[in-house]
């Protein structure tokens, strides 16, 4: 049994656009983008990030979220969209696609709108190890209803949850203000998340980021009204036979009754964790991470471009990347600075990095990389990154999800395992 993982890039079009070269039949297609408007690896204006997923070709089994904020705007102009029957829905209804076919070597996207010829990245998971995948959404509790909430109907007990969404509630409807969250969770002791917010229609930008790496939060939405407080926050309590349980610790008015997209997967090995960019040494600096417990086949990595903290920090940034090797990795980045009188934004799709973080300036093309890393190897117990750019003073925290083959199940209720033994005596 194996798990297969592949990332790549393609460009949207009119009608069906086939994506081949995946090398296996995907059981999950994830689409993500920031710099969809211009060519790959080119800095552009606007902060914009989209993420979607499809487990099959049924549109109602596909979900996507998207958020953006225009550049140089006074007052600010920020929005987000949730779509419950599309794998991509970006740029305020201008680019919409579903995954319409899945084959032995890839998948086909069907574009009902494609104003921008979207530059897209994909991450595909497949292989016999993955026995179940479901894409859908739950709904956050009503305002003030905190505590454990169990969600059923998944049809199996997940080994992995990927949660993503925004505060947009009506499918396909552009909603003012930009929020987002992406969370990875395997258990109560294995969960990380990244969130951000950009307030709409204010004369001084109000943007924040919030990243949790300490297994305490699997999903959080910033309050679109205040930006500096949370409207929704929860932690995975357990994976259950037919779903999962989340302990909601914060449910404010702007976080209540919101769709929370999920990708639930059974089968394979998964590890969530966090690292920080090295400060010592001269780039490129190699950084090995161990403790996965298996050899990853693929890696997701996100960063809010800030140091590790449990607090909300000023400025919106997100890097979202995935990769399977030193030659197969793609990430997107976007951000908007806080407390400026005219919005300062940028975005980029990067085809040869796993994670990338920028110092954003008003002239987007002059923005400089704070830190970014490439995959060197996926190792027996983790992975090794090469930090091609790094800071000598700031350790930028990244959260990750490593995916790999299912563990070989051996033994019974109790097991004694002997790797080697040697005995000798004179006679």
């Amino acid at each position: 049994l194996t798990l297969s993982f592949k990332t790549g890039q393609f460009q949207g079009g009119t009608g069906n656009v086939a994506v081949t070269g995946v090398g296996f039949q995907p059981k999950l297609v994830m689409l993500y983008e920031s710099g969809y408007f211009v060519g790959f690896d080119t800095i552009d204006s606007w902060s914009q990030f989209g993420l979607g997923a499809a487990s099959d070709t049924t549109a109602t089994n596909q979900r996507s979220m998207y958020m953006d904020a225009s550049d140089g705007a006074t007052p600010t102009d920020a929005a987000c969209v949730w779509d419950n029957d599309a794998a991509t829905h970006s740029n305020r209804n201008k680019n919409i696609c579903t995954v319409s076919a899945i084959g032995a070597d890839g998948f086909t996207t069907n574009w009902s709108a494609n104003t921008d010829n979207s530059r897209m990245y994909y991450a595909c998971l497949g292989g016999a190890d993955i026995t179940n995948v479901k894409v859908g959404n739950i709904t956050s509790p009503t305002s003030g209803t905190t505590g454990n909430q169990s969600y059923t109907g998944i049809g199996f007990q997940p080994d992995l949850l990927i949660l993503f969404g925004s505060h947009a509630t009506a499918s396909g409807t552009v909603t003012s203000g930009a929020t987002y969250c992406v969370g990875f969770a395997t258990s109560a002791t294995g969960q990380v998340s990244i969130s951000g917010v950009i307030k709409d229609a204010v004369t001084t930008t109000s943007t924040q980021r919030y990243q949790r790496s300490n297994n305490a939060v699997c999903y959080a939405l910033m309050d679109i009204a205040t930006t500096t407080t949370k409207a929704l926050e929860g932690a995975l309590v357990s994976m259950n036979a037919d779903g999962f349980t989340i302990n909601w610790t914060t449910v404010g008015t702007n976080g209540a009754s919101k769709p929370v997209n999920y990708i639930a997967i059974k089968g394979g090995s998964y590890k969530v964790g966090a690292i920080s960019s090295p400060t010592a040494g001269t780039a490129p600096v190699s950084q090995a991470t161990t403790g996965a417990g298996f050899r990853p086949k693929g890696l997701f990595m996100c960063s809010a471009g800030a140091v590790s903290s449990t607090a909300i920090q000023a400025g919106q940034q997100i890097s979202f990347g995935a990769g399977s090797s030193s030659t197969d990795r793609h990430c997107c980045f976007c951000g908007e600075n806080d407390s400026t009188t005219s919005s300062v934004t940028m975005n980029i799709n990067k085809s040869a990095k796993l994670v990338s973080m920028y110092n954003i300036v008003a002239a987007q093309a002059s923005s400089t990389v704070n830190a970014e890393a490439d995959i060197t190897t996926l190792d027996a117990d983790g992975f090794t990154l090469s930090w091609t750019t790094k800071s000598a003073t700031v350790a930028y925290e990244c959260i990750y999800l490593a995916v790999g083959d299912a563990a070989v199940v051996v033994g019974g209720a109790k097991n004694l395992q002997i790797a080697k033994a040697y005995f000798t005596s004179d006679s």
Partner: protein
Amino acid sequence: MMVVERRIGCELVGLSTDAKPDYPGLIDYRFYEVDTGNVFYYFGAAWSPVIGPADIGTFTNKTISALDNDFSRGVAVDFPLTFGYKRTGVIMPGVSGPYLAGSFGGMLVTTGSGQNPICALDNVEGAYQNFQANTTGEKMGIQSTTSTNSMITTRGQQPYLAVRARIDSTAGDRLYIGYTSNQTLPVSNTPLASTDSGVMLGFGSANSTFMVYYNDGTTTAVSQSFGITKDNNWHTFEIAMTITTVTCSIDGSPVLISSQIPNVSTPLYLNCVAQYV
């Protein structure tokens, strides 16, 4: 007959049968025995062999490069059955139980009910043999039982045992790796009774740390903690017996035992066993 001759400098040459001169003025002289190849050095009181067959010593505290020395072809052992030959056995993880039947020279493989020990792969350790149990009271691992299915030795044979192993659950279970004079290791928190001789590493169900148990069969066995909390990680267990002492170690942390150890001639049976309590 050869007469001792002085060659150049501080060098003397003669036969092994020649009387070597002996007076303080010969300090730093060398004596070459042309009929034996021995070379001696005079340090002021006597001639000390430095090269040749007469230079007998124990090769200790030296590192032999495995890269530069191929002992499989380059070392000849004289009289292997009486000098330098040792009985040696290994456990090499294989695909299934039958392969293990020959491990350690044919010891009985004890597993859970009707199940063969299977080979699996650990990302760090590599291949390992998994011995399983599903019911309380079952034993997992390599176990001496009868005279035809046992690995037997004595302390006088200076046995050495090294095992790299882990037990996946420590709660309430037992792990015993070592020797006992009892041909059948008991299912008990007391692996060595007062009449048993032996040395065992591991832990009983009531222990919180790894232990060493040892006894000479004359009194109550000693249970001594290694000070290492028991866990389900991989560990290297070693027991090295000599004529005078027993050295036990877990992951290189040694415990030296020099009293109440098995008599040099008491038969000892080897076990690498976990017990499902």
